[in-house]
């Protein structure tokens, strides 16, 4: 399946005079893990709530698996698994009762229901706690139960709103690896304001700020596009001034800083995202007879990109 499972066109949501979501558009293909990234209050949760058919948009359209969230909400909901922010679950039920309730509403045939529930509990690591009341579960197990709820009907699309908030580092690693595993077969959108989470789990990031999409692409693309490349060069032989002037004349160099220490000359080069400066630099060094001690290319980190895009 290569069709777009999620299509969002010019989506807007106003709360009173506040524009929580302000004309965003994006498509998501199947079997993609997309990170919805933004500072708190950027409109991530609102978008998730619209996609899950909980609230309606003020303007624009959103289609899930081809079904409009306003016109065919039931069809859309059948194809979505949704884990809301803070993962609310009925505290007075046991984990198993809760999953059975969800399975019944989700119309999982009673003949296969028990098998499906035990499969999903194994996948989410819930076997030991099924008989416990939800109120007594630890946060990690609670989150797993929320995931199990969202995946009970084997949906094509999983929406997760801050799936790792409030977990301890070990639990975070476990939940992330679970998400990665699921993402190989499903389309996953997860919202977060934690950057390493996106780096650890997502193929693609959509950065949203004040209700607008400010960047959208694979992690690699984002880093390059927004910041270009940085090179660190250490050579022996030329004076810092000579080295700086020679390197500056190479194509694509935007800025350069030179310093010298221990007889070697260190250059910090900023270059445009296109092309690779490592080869020309190496050839330059060979031609001039410099000794190349170090040559390294760094992409801008996602943190740099995120801060730059969302600081205004």
């Amino acid at each position, binding site marked *: 399946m290569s069709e777009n499972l999620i299509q969002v066109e010019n989506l807007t949501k*106003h*709360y*009173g005079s*506040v524009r929580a979501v302000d004309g965003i558009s994006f498509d998501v293909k199947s079997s993609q893990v997309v990170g919805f990234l933004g500072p708190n209050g950027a409109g991530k949760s609102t978008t998730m*709530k619209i996609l*899950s*058919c*909980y*609230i*309606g948009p*003020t303007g624009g359209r959103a289609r899930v698996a081809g079904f409009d969230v*306003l016109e065919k909400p*039931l069809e859309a*909901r*059948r194809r*979505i698994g*949704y884990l*809301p*922010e*803070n993962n*609310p*679950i*009925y*505290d*007075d*039920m046991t984990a198993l*009762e809760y999953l059975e*309730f*969800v399975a*019944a*509403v*989700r*119309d999982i045939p009673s003949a296969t229901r028990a098998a499906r529930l035990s499969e999903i509990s194994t996948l989410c690591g819930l076997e030991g706690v099924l008989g416990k009341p939800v109120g007594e579960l630890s946060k990690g197990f609670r989150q797993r139960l929320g995931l199990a*709820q969202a995946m009970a009907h084997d949906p094509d699309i999983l929406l997760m709103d801050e799936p790792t908030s409030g977990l301890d580092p070990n639990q975070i690693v476990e939940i992330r690896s679970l998400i990665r595993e699921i993402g190989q077969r499903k389309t996953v959108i997860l919202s977060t304001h934690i950057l390493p989470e996106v780096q650890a789990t997502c193929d693609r990031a959509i950065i949203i700020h004040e209700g607008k999409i400010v960047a959208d692409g694979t992690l690699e693309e984002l880093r390059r596009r927004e910041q270009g490349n940085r090179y660190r060069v250490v050579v022996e032989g030329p004076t810092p001034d000579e080295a700086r002037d020679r390197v500056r004349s190479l194509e694509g160099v935007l800025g350069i800083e030179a310093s010298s220490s221990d007889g070697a000359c260190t250059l910090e080069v900023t270059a445009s995202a296109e092309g690779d400066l490592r080869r020309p630099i190496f050839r330059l060094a060979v031609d001039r007879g410099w000794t190349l001690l170090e040559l390294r290319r760094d992409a801008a980190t996602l943190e740099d990109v995120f801060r730059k895009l969302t600081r205004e």
Partner: protein
Amino acid sequence: MKNVLIIACRELRSFFNSPVAYIVLTVYLLLAGYLYFTQLFLGREAEMRGLFELTPLLFVFFVPAVTMRLIAEERRAGTLEVLLTLPLTDWQVVLGKFLGALGLLAVGIGLTLAYPFTVSKLGDLDGGAVLGGYLGLLFLGATYAAIGVMASSFAKNQVVAFIIALGICFALFLAGKLVGVMPRAIAPIVDYLSLDSHFQSIARGVIDTRDLVYYASISGACLFVAQQSLASRQWKG
């Protein structure tokens, strides 16, 4: 319909998983039993009218206590977001919750069946009137429950839901008692609106379509408002 029943069952189970059901049922049975039997022994007549006369007032307090959490608590805890993103219509959610509450009331009303059973051992009991009275109690409970569901759908907080429902139920109850002092022009309207006057005829064993229409229309209107109140999340800011 299947989904309505799934929700109703979940609500019923949740009532009995928490102390609410036991407290409400115990207090209701204690109060109803005490008030009814003191009157019965004074009246020295084997009849159930006493119970049917006090229940409308008791229900004014007990039904809102049962219904207050239905939607308000889910909204507070956030589980409403899970429930309303499952493939359920808003109507199924509202009706399911209404039926769940009605189920608990039916248990409470059912437990009082011990009274007519006891009384029938003491003297001659009019079976038809008892049957009619119990039907009337169910209709009355359903109407109060619909009002309670509506109040719970407005409120973010159980206490607020309780007070709104109690206010509306009490006003409808009181209307019947005040007909006598109302100006002649509006007395019939007030009389029609009062729960009491419709209940009295059923409690006498007379099942009149007009009374049924009354209960059904009040319940239907309240449930409609509750459904609209849930649906308003779609457009409200």
